[in-house]
Structure formats: C-alpha cells, structure tokens
C-alpha cells in the first residue's frame, strides 16, 4: 500500500508541472499590456520600461517561466492588481473558509447520500424508494442559490434558529492556535503564512485550542451554507449508490451469502456495499468541480468572504494574478482529490494495487 501511494504521489508531480505551465501561458495569452493595466493607461514609456525590468518581463519566456515556477513553489503568486497585496496573503485569508464549507458539505452529501441510496436499494420499489428518488430528482433540479435563500427564509427569518449570514457572530473572534499557545512567531514569511492558513480554518482551530464557544458559533454559521451546497452532490451520490447496489445485489455471491444464512443487513454491509461503492467513489471525486462552482453562489448568498466570491470578483475585475493563483490551487486540489480517490479504489478493490 505504501509503495502504491508513493508511486501515485510521484506520478502527480509531472501533472502539477503541466498545470503550472498551462496557467503561465494562459496568463500571457490574455490581451493587454500588464504595465498599462497596473500602472494605468497614462504610464510613460520610461515608467513601463522600468516596470518591465523590475518584474522581469524583459527576459525571454522560458526564463520568465522558470522564475514564475520558482516563485510558485515558494508560495509566491505575485500581487493582486486590484488590492496591491500578495495573492498568497489573499488566498491564506479566503481559502480556509471555502475548504471548510466544501468539506462539511461533502461530508453531509456522502453520509446522507450513501445512506439514502442504501435505504432505497434495500426497500426497492416501495414507497421509501420512490420517495427517496423523488427527493433526489428534485435535489438535482434546484438552483443552489434559491435553496440557500429558502433555508435562510425558513431557519433564520421564520424560525430564528440559525444566523442568516456571516462566518462568526459580531464580536466573536477566533484566536489563532499559535497565539493561544503563546508561540513566538515573526509576523511574516512562509512559516507564518502557513500557521495563519491553518488557523484560519476556524473549526479546526477552535477544536485544537478547545475554544468551544467559537466552535459552536462557527458551526451554527456554517450549517445552512453547507446544507445548501451539499444538495446536488447528495442527490447524485444517492442515485449512484442505489443503482450500483441494486446491480450488485443481483449477483451470485450475494445470493450465496444469503443462502449461507446471513442477515440482510450483514449481506448488504459486508458483501454488497464494498463492491457497490466503487462507482460511488468515482462520482464523489467528480463532485469537486460542482462544489467549487456551487461555492461561488453559496458564498454570495450567505455573505461569506471565501475563495468562491474572491474568484468571482477577480474575474469581473480582470485581476489576473488572483485568478492565476486560484487556478493553480484548484488544480492542485483536483490532483490531490484524484489521488485520494485512487487510494480509496485500491483499498476497496485490492486487485487495483497490483495492476
């Protein structure tokens, strides 16, 4: 297993390098003079010359690519045109919110989706089955932003159980774990950025520092957006689980397991489910794109300053370094998720490890 994971990790490196090159070239293909777009339309020729010299734009393309890759590996994506701040800093602030949102949404989608799928496969052609599939069909047909608004209307406006927007209540603050533990850190550099990035995952941060009031606050704020974001993946997962399990339940070895006197629950969990889960795992891997697209809409509705709203604003404002940084991070995420999917395959189906 260790050998399998190592091999997969090594195979991911050329893919990541490819992504870096494509992103770099895409940024060069965008029309317009970077000098004019950053210094303004009235920038003089001398100023532009100095600017190009300063940013290394006079070097040949391969050299620029080398410098760019060196920077990215060190976590430097350049500066945002709109905010004149390092893109890395913006990502450190915005990304954790989206990661937490997506992870919680994905967890809800998997747990509820697989559960509903099993339930409706075991009760095939009953009211439970029909009801679940109707819910799943409605789930994939609902606009995410509308569901979000409906959840706000029901749980925040009408029932008043949950907050309608934001990440934490006004006045509440998440104390970074490095401060809570009294670490001596200088307020800059790669190491500090990493610590900041980790501590901006409020849920994780409040768990390790034992700050239960912030944890509760963060969770109550996250639950509505996460539920809204989880519906489509949940419906897709439920449908795949059901059809895959129904397919497996008709196989000979399941009949054998039944004939040996295994209870229905045992037959499903021990024999059928493991084989039925392979297509489900593939689908879960493919949901990452849907989660990211959904994050833009969900974050807009719930007033969350995450990476989704960040990239939407960057696209509309032509803030290319931010878009570029986001693409690299997302692409890396894709590669990592696919890696996890492959490892789960190998766990579920030992034959894959041998290939």
């Amino acid at each position, binding site marked *: 297993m260790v050998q399998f994971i190592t091999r997969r990790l090594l195979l991911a490196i050329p893919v990541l390098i490819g992504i870096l090159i*494509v992103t770099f070239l895409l940024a060069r293909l965008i029309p317009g003079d970077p000098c004019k777009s950053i210094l303004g339309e009235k920038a003089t020729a001398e100023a532009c010359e100095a600017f190009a010299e300063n940013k290394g734009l006079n070097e040949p393309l391969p050299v620029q690519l080398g410098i760019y890759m060196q920077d990215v590996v060190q976590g430097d994506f350049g500066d945002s045109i709109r905010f004149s701040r390092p893109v890395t800093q913006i990502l450190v602030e915005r990304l954790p919110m989206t990661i937490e949102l997506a992870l919680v949404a994905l967890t809800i989608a998997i747990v509820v989706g697989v559960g509903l799928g099993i339930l409706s496969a075991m009760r095939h052609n009953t009211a439970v089955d029909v009801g679940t599939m109707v819910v799943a*069909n*409605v789930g*994939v*047909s*609902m*606009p*995410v*932003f*509308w*569901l979000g*608004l*409906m959840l*706000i*209307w029901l749980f925040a*406006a009408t029932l008043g159980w949950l907050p309608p927007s934001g990440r934490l209540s006004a006045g509440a603050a998440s104390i970074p774990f490095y401060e809570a533990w009294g670490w001596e850190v200088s307020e800059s550099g790669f190491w500090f950025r990493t610590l900041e990035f980790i501590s901006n995952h409020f849920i994780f941060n409040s768990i390790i520092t034992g700050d239960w009031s912030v944890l509760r606050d963060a969770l109550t704020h996250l639950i509505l957006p996460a539920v809204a974001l989880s519906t489509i993946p949940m419906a897709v997962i439920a449908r795949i689980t059901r059809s895959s399990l129904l397919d497996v339940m008709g196989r000979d070895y399941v009949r054998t397991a039944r004939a040996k006197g295994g209870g229905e629950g045992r037959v499903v969990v021990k024999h059928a489910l493991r084989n039925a889960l392979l297509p489900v795992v593939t689908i879960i891997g493919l949901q*990452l*794109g*849907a989660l*990211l*697209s*959904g994050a*833009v*809409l969900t974050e*807009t*509705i719930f007033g969350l300053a995450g990476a989704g709203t960040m*990239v*939407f604003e960057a*696209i*509309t404002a032509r803030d290319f370094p931010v*878009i570029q940084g986001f693409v690299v991070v*997302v*692409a890396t995420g*894709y590669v990592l998720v696919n890696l996890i999917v492959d490892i789960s395959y190998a766990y579920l189906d030992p034959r894959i490890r041998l290939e």
Partner: protein
Amino acid sequence: MKLNPLSGPDVSELDELVREETLLERPHGLWSGAWRRLLRRKGGVTGLIIIGTIVLVALLAPIIAPYDPVLDDFIGDGDSRRRDSPCVHVLGCDEEKTQHLMGLDGNARDQFSRIVFGSRWSLSIGFFTVALAFSVGATLGAVAGYWGGHLDNWIMRIMDVILGFPALLLAIAIGASLGPGIRNTMIAIAIVSIPIYARVMRASVLSIKELDFVAASRTLGAGRLRILWTRVVPNALTPLVVISTLGIATAILDAAAFGFLGLGAQPPDPEWGAMLAAERSQIFSAPHLVWFPGLAIMFTVLGFNLLGDGLRDALDPSLHE
C-alpha cells in the same frame, strides 16, 4: 400453459403461444418503440407533462399573463403597492382589491405575468445553448471519431482541457470576458458543454463506422464525407438525444445562476434568475418574490431531467424486458 408430467408440454398449446408471441412482436422502428417505452415510465411521463405545460404557457404567454411583464403596473391600478403579497380572490383575498396571483415585485409589476413570460426566456436559453453546443460538439466528435489519428488526438485533448475546469467557473470566466447579456451567457455555457457532446458523438461514431452497412457503402464507392453524413452520423445520434435533454436542464440552471450573479439577463427582462437576484435581499420582508421564480426554475429543470432519464431508459437496449 399447463404442464402434463406424463406427456410433456401440450404441443398444440405451445404452438398457439408461439403464434401469439409472433403476432404481438410487430416490427417497429427504434423511435416508435422508444416512445412507447417512455410512456410506460412514470418519470418520463411526468417530465413530458411538465415540459408540455411550460411550452404551452410560453406559447400562450400574452393570453395567460394578465399584465405587461416589463412595464410598471402603477398607472390605472391605484390600490397596488410595491412588493405586495399575493392576492387571490378564491383564497379569501378581499374582492375589492386587484387580484395578483403571485404578488407584486419591487417595481409594482405583476409577478405572475413576469413568471409566465420568463418561461419563454428559460426555454429559449435552454434550447439555443444546447443547439449551439450540440452542433459544434457533435461535428467535432464526428470528425474526430471518423478520421482518427492526429486530428482525433488534437480535438480530444482540447476537449479534455475544457473538461478539466469546473464548468460553471469556466463559463463565468468566459461570460465575464465577453460581457454581461443573454447572448453571451448562452455562448459561455455552450462552450463549456461542447466537450460532452464531442465525447459522446465520438464514441458513438467509433462503434458505428466499423459496422457492415458502412463497409458496404464504402465498397460501393461512396466518398468519406458522404458516408460520414449519410450513413454514420444519422445512426450515431441516438445517445446524443439523452445528453441534449439533460443538457437543456443544466443550461437553464446555469443561465439562472448567470442571471443571479448579474452576468446574464439584465433588468427589466423577466428572466427567473435575474428576478431572484433583484429581490433576494427582500427574503425577510417579501419572500414571495423569491419563492416563485425559484419554483419556476426548479419545475422546468425537473421536467427536462425526468424526460432525459426516461429517454435514457427507453433507448437503452439492455433494459428492454
């Protein structure tokens, strides 16, 4: 059929049974068979009914809608105020007041009329987006599958690159660079869905171009293009029907998201996503302005999803009982 354990099956009865079966199995084409199987599925029929209703509403919009969807309703309608709740006389609303089935929007326009006219927007967005993606994607896929070699490689690698990005985000990026508006929305959404049609068409063409009737055409001396367009493509289109139906659902949903983000239809056009966006901050005070456009989007998308799933089952030969 009775089974007599001593003499075996009754031969005359068996004969009759065989004759009946042959009589029942009247030969029919792929589409009439698929149509009958579709009508046997609850989901497919539900989808057909929903879409049929919406198409009717769109066609008869000027007759159904009591008010103009774009002009303000202030003039000549003294008692209606902005963002009034729905007033339906049958449901006990004061007979004195003017009836507004879905209430009034922020500009005191009758929301029911706007929803009714919105069906024209959503249906045409869905249809034209898919038509564009279908024609480009299917052509690329057919060419790639039929010619093979380098051309195939190049086309499909480009398709892979497009598929590598989260679809809606890529569409937003394209839409943002083209500028807001309904035409650009359709182009952006069509571009990101081209690879799906290309892939399905290519796979379909690959399986058909090796069949005997294509070889027969080739032997008779038909040219490559002629074989492709008259023999291969018509037979390869079946799987694309399902993809296109589901594609209309996705296109409507994505276009609504575009409208919601302010990239799609612009006010005062009665597009459902844009209507939601305009009134979303009123969720606390006038929730009816958020309910109805969302429900309209959901039912339309549901209709196409159900029909697509139904068609998939009806056209799948492995599922025929």
